[in-house]
């Protein structure tokens, strides 16, 4: 029985938000990811690419040399559809299409296989701006040509049983595309909410007069089974794994059961989103990967 799980383990550079540009640069992060035994590297286009959106040849060459040296596979490139750039109007389909095209082209040049557009919302319960479907459809041929799968992110407090997910699935149904699928952020299944601290910073949403979000009901991991066929990528969101290697927020054993049962062989890309204390991400990522590697073989074994 192999001790390597069937799925692949990666790490998103988002995890190093408390470190990036402060105690770690891109190379430090990539080395940390390789050192902890992961093989996939995920980035945020607007976060981690020097000079975005105008990449120098030197930067591109350096990127390819870096991931090759460390044996890392570029996995997902995070992008945004910033629908609130203008105070007086929303984003047009043309603007959104151009933004997504730009990011798909950049992702392709850097060797990525997935692009996640983070889509602006139009309601209090996070319904995505209706431009999303046409923006995506206009980019499906390009994505196909570039071997890239576009995957919107299902992110807490959006749940799996939601209008947004139904609409995403409807697009696949309608177009028959293989260049679009679901990205599940495992924070969807959080058992309780982690309140993140960040040394020296206070953060506030709006005036602070209304609660940031109502506490949504806990999403049963079982709901994941219904959509596994359309899941192309996991962001393995987590917040804190304690000194006993226990995660009190994310039910990893249950999640890995569903993942193993489905035969999923794609990426689990770690997104550390706990306290943004320098060096904490490196430590917590190792804990999470130790936990997943400890749990995964027994899950796979149970199915064999």
């Amino acid at each position, binding site marked *: 029985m192999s001790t390597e799980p069937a799925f692949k383990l990666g790490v998103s550079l988002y995890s190093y938000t408390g470190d990036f*540009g402060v105690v770690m640069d891109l190379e430090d992060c990539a080395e940390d990811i390789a050192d902890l035994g992961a093989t996939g590297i995920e980035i945020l286009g607007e976060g981690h690419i020097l000079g975005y959106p105008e990449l120098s040849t030197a930067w591109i060459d350096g990127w390819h040399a870096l991931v090759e040296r460390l044996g890392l596979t570029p996995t997902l490139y995070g992008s945004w559809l*910033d629908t*609130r750039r203008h105070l007086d109007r929303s984003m047009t389909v043309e603007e959104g299409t151009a933004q997504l095209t730009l990011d798909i082209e950049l992702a392709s040049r850097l060797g990525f296989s997935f692009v996640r557009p983070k889509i*602006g919302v139009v309601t209090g319960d996070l319904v995505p701006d209706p431009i999303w479907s046409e923006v995506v459809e206009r980019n499906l041929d390009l994505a196909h040509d570039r071997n890239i799968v576009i995957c919107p992110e299902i992110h807490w407090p959006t749940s799996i049983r939601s209008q947004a997910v139904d609409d995403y699935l409807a697009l696949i149904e309608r177009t028959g595309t293989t260049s679009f699928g679901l990205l599940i952020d495992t924070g969807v299944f959080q058992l309780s909410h982690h309140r993140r601290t960040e040394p020296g910073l*206070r953060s*506030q949403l*709006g005036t602070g007069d209304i609660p940031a979000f109502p506490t949504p009901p806990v999403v049963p991991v079982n709901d994941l089974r219904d959509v596994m066929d359309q899941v192309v990528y996991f962001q393995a969101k987590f917040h804190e794994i304690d000194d006993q290697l226990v995660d009190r927020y994310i039910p990893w054993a249950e999640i890995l059961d569903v993942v193993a049962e489905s035969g999923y062989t794609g990426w689990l890309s770690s997104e550390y989103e706990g306290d943004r204390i320098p060096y904490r991400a490196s430590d917590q990522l190792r804990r999470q990967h130790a936990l997943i590697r400890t749990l995964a073989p027994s899950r796979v074994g149970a199915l064999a």
Partner: protein
Amino acid sequence: MLEQAMIQAKGFRNAGSGEERTGFEVRIRSPYYRGTWTNLIDGVRVEVDGETFPSESIVWSIEGTDYTAGDLRDSETARWPLTAPATLRVPKPGGLSVGIHDVTVALSFRMSYIPVELQPQTWTASRKATIVR
């Protein structure tokens, strides 16, 4: 590398020289986890020893280019990269006295992916910072 604190020790200084001090500068790094188009910046407020300097009075300098609040808002292409510190130029005739000051910076962004009722997102940082001369 940038300093961990949003308000950097480096770059806090008087502008102009001698009797001709025209204001001061304070350097910040972005508290956000990505670079942004500058028209997502909703404003910045600087406070020194209790005196508040409003967003419209402040000139930003990012990677060598100057921007008023209006410039940030109106540009379709300008960016604030994640690892580029921004220098905030604050007018204050006479500048600041040599010594230690209480400095606060509150910085707001519009987040498209969070409900509009919860906008903008504001990060606030405070520190003691020193004017050397």
